[in-house]
């Protein structure tokens, strides 16, 4: 296992695979939260449903935590190696065909880490913007559950919180737009027959994911999603 990190190619592959798990997570996470548009009852039932998964939820969490650690560790390892590989910088250096997003992966990665800490502190640990974090809701079957609907919408009614999420998601979009096509290349798939398709899918998928995420705080701001008072 340790041997993997002696090879730059294997470290990159570890990075690609763990990143792929996170791309999967971001799609699943977004799909779940789209239930906000289905109303307070559906969304709160979904939140409770996740909690009811018990050990399965923890299995998922462990997979995501390991992927996160692997992705960040590989990233830091490669970054420090890459910095060492050019001890004297050029006076003039121009990008030739590289995109700004491909050169900013470490920066947008750090931004995403900051976002994750903030996001967990906000919605999972309930330590920031805590005014809506501890309300309860009674489902139609009589069960009293955590009112996650009010927590999400109430928080996004604050324009600064809303703006922070939109900006973080734009950073995520920059990271993702390079990441998806990059995974394909790193795992060894590159052929003139399907390269343009990979590019289109990568751009399309990252645009859909980012617009999807932005649509939630934006809908709150535009009044499409609003507090319903609860039970």
């Amino acid at each position, binding site marked *: 296992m340790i041997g993997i990190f*002696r*090879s*730059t*190619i*294997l*470290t*990159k*592959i570890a990075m690609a695979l763990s990143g792929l798990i996170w791309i999967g997570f971001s799609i699943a996470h977004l799909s779940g939260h789209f239930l906000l548009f289905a109303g307070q009852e559906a969304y709160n039932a979904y939140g409770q449903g996740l909690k009811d998964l018990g050990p399965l939820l923890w299995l998922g969490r462990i997979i995501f935590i390991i992927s996160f650690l692997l992705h960040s560790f590989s990233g830091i390892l*490669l970054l420090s*190696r*890459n910095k*060492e*590989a*050019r*001890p*004297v*910088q*050029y*006076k*003039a*250096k*121009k*990008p*030739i*065909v*590289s*995109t700004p997003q*491909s*050169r900013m*992966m470490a920066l947008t990665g750090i931004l995403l880490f900051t976002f994750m800490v903030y996001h967990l502190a906000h919605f999972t640990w309930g330590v920031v913007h805590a005014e809506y974090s501890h309300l309860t809701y009674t489902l139609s079957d009589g069960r009293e559950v955590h009112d996650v609907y009010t927590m999400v919408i109430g928080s996004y009614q604050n324009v600064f919180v809303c703006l922070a999420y939109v900006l973080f998601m734009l950073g995520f979009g920059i990271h993702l737009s*390079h990441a998806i*096509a*990059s995974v394909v*290349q*790193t*795992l*060894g*798939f*590159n*052929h*003139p027959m399907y390269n343009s398709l990979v590019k289109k899918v990568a751009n399309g998928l990252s645009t859909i994911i980012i617009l999807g995420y932005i649509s939630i705080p934006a809908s709150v701001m535009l009044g499409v999603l609003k507090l319903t008072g609860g039970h």
Partner: protein
Amino acid sequence: MNLTLHIWRQENTTAEGRFSTYRVEEISPDMSFLEMLDVLNERLINKGEVPVEFEHDCREGICGTCSLMINGVPHGPEKGTTTCQLHMRKFKDGDEITIEPWRAKAFPVLKDLVVDRSAFDRIIQKGGYISANTGNAPDGNAIPIPKPDSDWAFEAAACIGCGACVAACKNASASLFVAAKVTHLGLLPQGQPERYLRVTAMVEQMDQEGFGSCTNTYDCEGACPKQISVRNIARMNRDYLKAKIMGN
């Protein structure tokens, strides 16, 4: 043409380098970039100054010896061209040109614009060859090879080992060079027996030399005077992974 050149001067590997500025006058637009540097050096010698050291050999774009970072781009502004084949008509009268050596830990500066590219030789020594004696050149059609494979192998074999890929990469990665060498032999029947041993040995030597890793930014492909595709890097990754899983 009259030009202002900012050229990196460095006495030897351990000395500290600096930029020196030179004016060159009456340069013909038909001169090659290296001929323009020849003119500068003649003038420096006539004035009793130390000429600027730079590498060159064939001056036909096929040997891979010339290696200059010109205004932040390896081999200068013309795509798919080595420094020796770059002509001064690509510049304008009055231009300022910054000339630097390739910058990488694995390519230490020997003097001025000359770097030591032996790291590439050591990578080749690890597997950039076929060890079986293949005898005389076989009959043209004696070994059937699919046309797309022979074309791809030929494209990869066009690598002249100049190091522009390392120079252009933000991580000073040698992935495109190694991938081209691995692919050119690995696609042909003669290269099959040692295919996986070759990729493992060459990639591991590349890592040992202190080159950076590939982050798929593709400036290497943009800078390559032979326009070798990053498709070769994907193939190298695939072969290397297969070799690791199957134990060479």
